[in-house]
């Protein structure tokens, strides 16, 4: 089963899983920064690899990305992608002061960025693993701020021998003042996707 063959019902099921995960992540983030933050997943879609960079603004646009591997009962890769401004604003919100520089963050800023990745990835994975009764463990995140095309090559190389598209969960963060946008890419290997969809299809 490839992502591009997903039907509407399966996409709905995946969005539901995503929204449960987003709810968990919002709770964790809100507690951490002491302010109410809501997260939602307005859109879930399967995107062929060559089109992924286009939905992120083209291969040369600058983004901040967190890359994690998933271990456990199923395998895959997670990529969290933010526009540089959105990432800077989110981190400023977490630390309650402006970010010095996204390209050379201070140690505390860097750990806030990685923590953001941890919170989001763990929340999503928890939602999926509770629903499917499987164990999913994310690796420590790694940060890169560079061109979209260059950043996407890492996970695509990992999967290019077995898959041709990625599952993209658009993620919207809102606090009272403004809205941030990020994209959560889940790239399970195809076998893992079958496991997920089988479990989702159960009544």
């Amino acid at each position: 089963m490839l992502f591009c063959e997903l039907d509407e019902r399966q996409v709905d099921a995946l969005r539901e899983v995503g929204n449960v995960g987003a709810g968990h992540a919002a709770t964790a983030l809100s507690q951490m920064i002491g302010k109410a933050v809501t997260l939602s997943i307005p859109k879930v879609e399967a995107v062929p690899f060559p089109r992924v960079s286009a939905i992120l603004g083209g291969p040369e646009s600058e983004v901040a990305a967190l890359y994690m591997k998933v271990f456990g009962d199923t395998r895959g890769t997670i990529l969290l992608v933010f526009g540089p401004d959105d990432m800077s604003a989110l981190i400023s919100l977490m630390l309650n002061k402006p970010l010095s520089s996204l390209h050379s963050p201070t140690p505390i800023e860097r750990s806030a960025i990685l923590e953001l990745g941890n919170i989001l990835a763990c929340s999503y994975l928890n939602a999926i693993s509770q629903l499917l009764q499987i164990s999913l463990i994310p690796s420590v995140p790694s940060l890169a701020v560079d061109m979209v095309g260059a950043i996407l090559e890492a996970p695509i190389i990992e999967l290019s021998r077995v898959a041709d598209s990625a599952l993209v969960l658009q993620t919207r963060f809102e606090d009272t003042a403004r809205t941030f946008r990020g994209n959560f890419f889940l790239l399970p290997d195809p076998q893992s996707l079958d496991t997920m969809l089988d479990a989702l299809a159960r009544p």
Partner: protein
Amino acid sequence: MPAPPSEPLELSVPMGQLVVCPVPALLVVHGLGSCVAVFLHDRRRRIGGMAHALLPGGSRAERERTPGKFVASAIDLMLRKFEDLGVGVPALVAKICGGASMFLGVTCERQKIGDRNVRAALRALEELRIPVVAQDVGGTVGRTVRARTEDGVLEVSSLRQEPRTI
């Protein structure tokens, strides 16, 4: 009076694909990370070709199905296209770019895939006796590569850095 110089044809080379172009053109790889871009050039006839390969090697079946994905089979396919234009291996020189490590510290990122791609390209070109006359490889930054088929000059640009030519 000579006609004013027109903008050269610009051809994008996506991941896993390759282009060999016998007319003046810019062959462009946008946002190259740990993949490797191999540029081959016939100086005399001003013909250039570019491959954007993902992986250092694959099984025979994989290489036959998608030759552009793998370094050595991508180079072989480019050579066949040069041959169709009447260009033999001895006429060619090579330049290579890419092979970065974008995410340091992900221990499980396939160990240094960028380095392995570069090594695979150098090895394949050495076996073919095609001299590698310039390279801009490794490091931790993405690159956009623009190759002029007319004179074989490559412009390499990264974010927050001055563009360089090789």
